[in-house]
C-alpha cells in the first residue's frame, strides 16, 4: 500500500511539474504558444459550457415519473443565429490571427544564413555553406536567422524542431524551405515528422544553439573543409560545365555570372526567377529550361550527380554574384 501511495505521489508530482509545451526557443515560438493558449481557452470554455449545461439539464430534467409529459419544443431563430454567428466570429478571429503568423513564418528574412539539408532513410545530412557537414546535428549561433533549404534523396521526410515550432516536408525531386530565428541558447530535438519507413523513429537529432563566441570556436575547430561554393567550383570543372558556360560569355552556353536571383526569359516564352529549383532543373532536365539564342545541346546530369553535389553547384552559381548583368 505504501509503495502504491509512493508511486501515486511520484506520478502526481511528475504530472504537476510537467510542462505542457516544449521550450520556446525561436522568435515565433512565443507567438505560436499564445495562439495555442487562445485555442485552448476556447476549447476549455466551450467544453465546460456544454458539459455543465448538459449536466445541469440531466439533473434538473431527469424523468421523475413514467407519465410525465414535457412542454412543447419551440424552435428559436434568435438562438440559432446566436450560436451560428458567435462561433463564426470566433473562427474569423482565429483564422486571421493564425494566417498572419503563418504568412510571417513563410517569409525568411533577407539576412538569413542558408543551411542545406538532405533527408534520407534514416538520417539528416546538414551542410553549412562555409563547408562543415553535419549528420543529425546542427550547430547555429543564437539570434541569427537560419533558412533551411532541403530535399530528400528517397521518400518524403519532414524536418521538425518542436522548440522552434517549425516544420516542413522534405520532398524528393524538389526543394522546400523553412526558416527560424533561434533566441535561446540550448539543445533542442530535431525529429522526422513524416513516416518514412522502418527507422522513422530513429531519424532524429539535435539542434545546438550557441553563443556567437562558442559558434565561432566550433566553426574554427572542425577539420578544414572546402566551402560548398568551393566544392561546387571543383565539380563545375570536373564535370565539364566550364567548357560551355564560359565566364565572361562567348561560349556555347550563357555565362552564369550574376545570374542567381534574376528573372530570366526562357525559350518557351515564360519568365522564371533563377533560384535553387531552376538550377536543379537545368542540371537534370536541361532542355526544359533553355534560353533563346543558345542551342539546346546541354546534356543531362541525371544519375551522375547526387543531391549534395547539386547543392554544391548551386552554391557555386550563387557565389558568382547576383549583381545586375550588363547586356550579356
Amino acid at each position, binding site marked *: 500500500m505504501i509503495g502504491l501511495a509512493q508511486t501515486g505521489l511520484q506520478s502526481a508530482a511528475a504530472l504537476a511539474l510537467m510542462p505542457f509545451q516544449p521550450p520556446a526557443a525561436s522568435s515565433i515560438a512565443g507567438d505560436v504558444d499564445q495562439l495555442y493558449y487562445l*485555442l485552448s481557452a476556447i476549447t476549455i470554455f466551450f467544453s465546460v459550457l456544454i458539459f455543465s449545461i448538459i449536466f445541469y439539464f440531466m439533473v434538473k430534467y431527469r424523468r421523475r415519473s413514467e407519465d410525465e409529459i414535457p412542454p*412543447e419544443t419551440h424552435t428559436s431563430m434568435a438562438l440559432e443565429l446566436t*450560436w451560428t454567428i458567435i462561433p463564426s466570429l470566433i473562427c474569423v478571429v482565429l483564422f486571421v490571427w493564425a494566417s498572419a503568423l503563418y504568412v510571417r513564418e513563410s517569409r525568411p528574412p533577407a539576412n538569413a544564413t542558408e543551411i542545406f539539408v538532405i533527408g534520407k532513410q534514416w538520417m539528416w545530412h546538414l551542410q553549412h555553406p562555409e563547408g562543415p557537414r553535419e549528420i543529425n546535428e546542427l550547430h547555429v549561433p543564437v539570434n541569427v536567422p537560419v533558412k533551411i533549404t532541403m530535399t530528400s534523396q528517397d521518400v518524403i521526410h519532414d524536418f521538425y524542431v518542436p522548440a522552434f515550432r517549425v516544420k516542413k516536408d522534405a520532398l524528393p525531386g524538389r526543394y522546400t524551405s523553412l526558416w527560424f530565428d533561434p533566441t535561446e541558447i540550448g539543445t533542442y530535438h530535431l525529429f522526422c515528422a513524416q513516416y518514412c519507413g522502418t527507422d522513422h523513429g530513429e531519424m532524429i537529432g539535435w539542434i545546438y544553439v550557441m553563443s556567437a563566441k562558442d559558434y565561432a570556436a566550433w566553426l574554427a575547430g572542425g577539420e578544414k573543409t572546402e566551402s560548398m561554393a568551393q566544392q561546387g567550383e571543383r565539380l563545375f570543372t570536373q564535370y565539364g560545365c566550364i567548357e560551355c558556360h564560359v565566364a565572361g560569355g562567348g561560349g556555347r552556353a550563357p555565362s552564369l555570372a550574376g545570374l542567381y536571383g534574376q528573372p530570366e526569359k526562357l525559350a518557351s516564352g515564360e519568365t522564371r526567377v533563377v533560384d535553387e529549383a531552376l538550377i536543379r532543373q537545368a542540371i537534370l532536365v536541361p532542355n526544359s529550361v533553355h534560353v533563346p539564342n543558345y542551342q539546346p545541346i546541354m546534356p543531362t546530369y541525371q544519375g551522375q550527380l547526387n543531391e549534395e553535389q547539386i547543392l554544391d553547384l548551386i552554391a557555386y552559381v550563387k557565389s558568382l554574384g547576383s549583381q545586375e548583368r550588363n547586356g550579356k
Partner: protein
Amino acid sequence: MSTATADIHHDPVESNVNYLNSSYGIKSWLLTVDHKRIGLMYLAVITFMFLIGGVAATLMRLNLVEPQGALVEPETYNKLFSTHGIIMVFFFLVPSIPATLGNFLIPIMIGARDVAFPKLNLMSWYIFVTGCIFAMIAIISGGVDTGWTFYPPYSSLYSHTPVVIMALGIFIAGFSSILTGLNFVVTIHKMRAPGMTWFRLPLFIWALYATSLIFILGTPVIAITIFLLGLERLFHVGIFDPAIGGDPLLFQHLFWFYSHPAVYIMILPSMGVISELITAFSRKKIFGYSFVAFSSLAIAVISFVVWGHHMFVTGQSVYAGLVFSVLSFIVAIPSAIKVFNWTATLYKGSISYQAPMLYALGFIGLFTIGGLTGLFLASLATDVHLNGTYFVVAHFHYIMVGGALMGYLGGIHFWWPKITGRMYPDIWARVAAAIVFIGFNLTFFPQFVVGYLGMPRRYAVYSTEFQFLNIMSSAGASVLAVGYAIPLVYLIWSMRYGPPAGRNPWGAKGLEWTTQSPPPTENFDVPPIVTEDAYNYAYAEAPHV
C-alpha cells in the same frame, strides 16, 4: 393508419413469425435479400474486423510503454499501426453504421418494405467480404507498413510488404460502399411511405442521405487513386515517382480528396443516431429540425473542399494554405450548430439514463472536444507545429472513437430490442458505457499533451521525456478494452436469455417502434401512412395565464 402513440403497456397480439425465424438454414441467410438480415451479416463481419484492428491497437499501446519499444521491433510496430489504421478506417468505421444500422433501419424508418435494390444490397455484402478477405490475406502475409495513407514514393518504390494485395482489398471494399450509398439514395428518394415528406423524415435518414452522397462522389476517387498506386508499384511507370517525372504530392491530393470526406462518412451517421437518442430519451421534439437536417447536407458538401488541410506542411503555396484553412473553419460551423441543437433539445425534457442515452451524452461531450481541437489544426500557424504529432492522433480519435464509435454503440443498444426482440441488462450496459467514457479519456487526453510537446506520430521508439504520458495512455487503453469487451458478453447473452422487448420498450417515436420486435420480413403488418412530424412526442400545453 397513423403512427399510434407509443404504447408501452399494452402490446397488440403479436405474430410469432419475424424476419429471424421466417426461414432457417445457412442458405437462407447467405442468399437472403432481406435488408435486415443483410444488416446483421454486416454486423458480424465488421465486429470481427474491429477485433483485428483492436488487437493491433493493443499491441501498439503495449509497445509504447517503453521508449525503446517494450514488445516489438520497429518493423513490426510500423505494420501494426498501418494495419490498425487501414482496418479501422476502411473495414470498420466507414461501413459501421451505414451497413449495419442503416441497412436495418432505413426502409423501416421511411415505411418501405425493403431497399430499392435488395439483390444489389446482398452483392454489396459479398463484395465487402471479398475486400475483407484480401485485407486479411495481406495481414497474414505479414501486413503492410505504409501507414493507412500509403504515401509514395515509400509505398510505391521502397516498401517490401504486400501493398498491392492490401490495396486490392481496399479497392474492392470501396465498391461495396459505392453500391450501398447508391441503394440508400434511391431508396430515400423514391420509396418513402405516403405522407412521409422530406421534412418528416427522422434525422437519422437525413444523416445517412448526406453520408450516401459522400459515398457516391468520394469513394470512386480513392478507388482510382489506389488503382494508380497499384499500377505504379507493379510497373514503375512514374506517375508518382519524381525521378521519372511524376509527383508524389499528386497522390496526396487525390488521396485526401476522398479521405477527408471519408471522415465525415464516419461521423455523420453517428450524428444521426444521436439525434434519435436525444429525442427518445428526453421525449421531446428535436430543437431546430431543419437546422440539423441542413447542417448534415452542408457538412457533406463542404467536406469536399477542405482536403488541403492535411498538406499544410508539404510546401504547397501560402495561398493554397489560406484557402483550405478558411474552408476548414467553415466546415466546423454546421457541427457546432448540431451540438447546440442537441443540447437545447434536453431543455425541459423528461430525461432518462438508460445506456443509449449515456452513450449519446458522452458523444456530445467528446465530439465537442474533438471538434474544437480540430480548430488547432485548421489554424495554419499551430498546424505547422502540430501536424504529424500525437495531437493529430488525439484529435481524430476523439472524433472517431469518442464520437463515431460511441454513437455506433449507442445505436446498437437503442435498436437492439427491435433487431433481436430481446432486452439486455441495462445495469451492465450503463457500467460498460461509463468504463468506455473513462478509459477513452485516459487513453487519448494525454496524447494532446504529448503531441504539443513534440512527440511525432508513427514512432516505434521515442524520446524518454514522453514516457510518463505514454504509460498513462496505455493504461487508459486497457480500461477502454474492458469497456468494449463487456457489451459483447451481455448482448450475446441477451439473444438467448434476455426478456422479450415488446414493440416499443423505450416509448420512442418513429415508424420502427410501431412494428413488431423483431419485425416481420415485410417490415410492417400494414404499410404505414404518415400524418405527423418526426419526434412528435406528446407535449403539455403551455399553462394559460
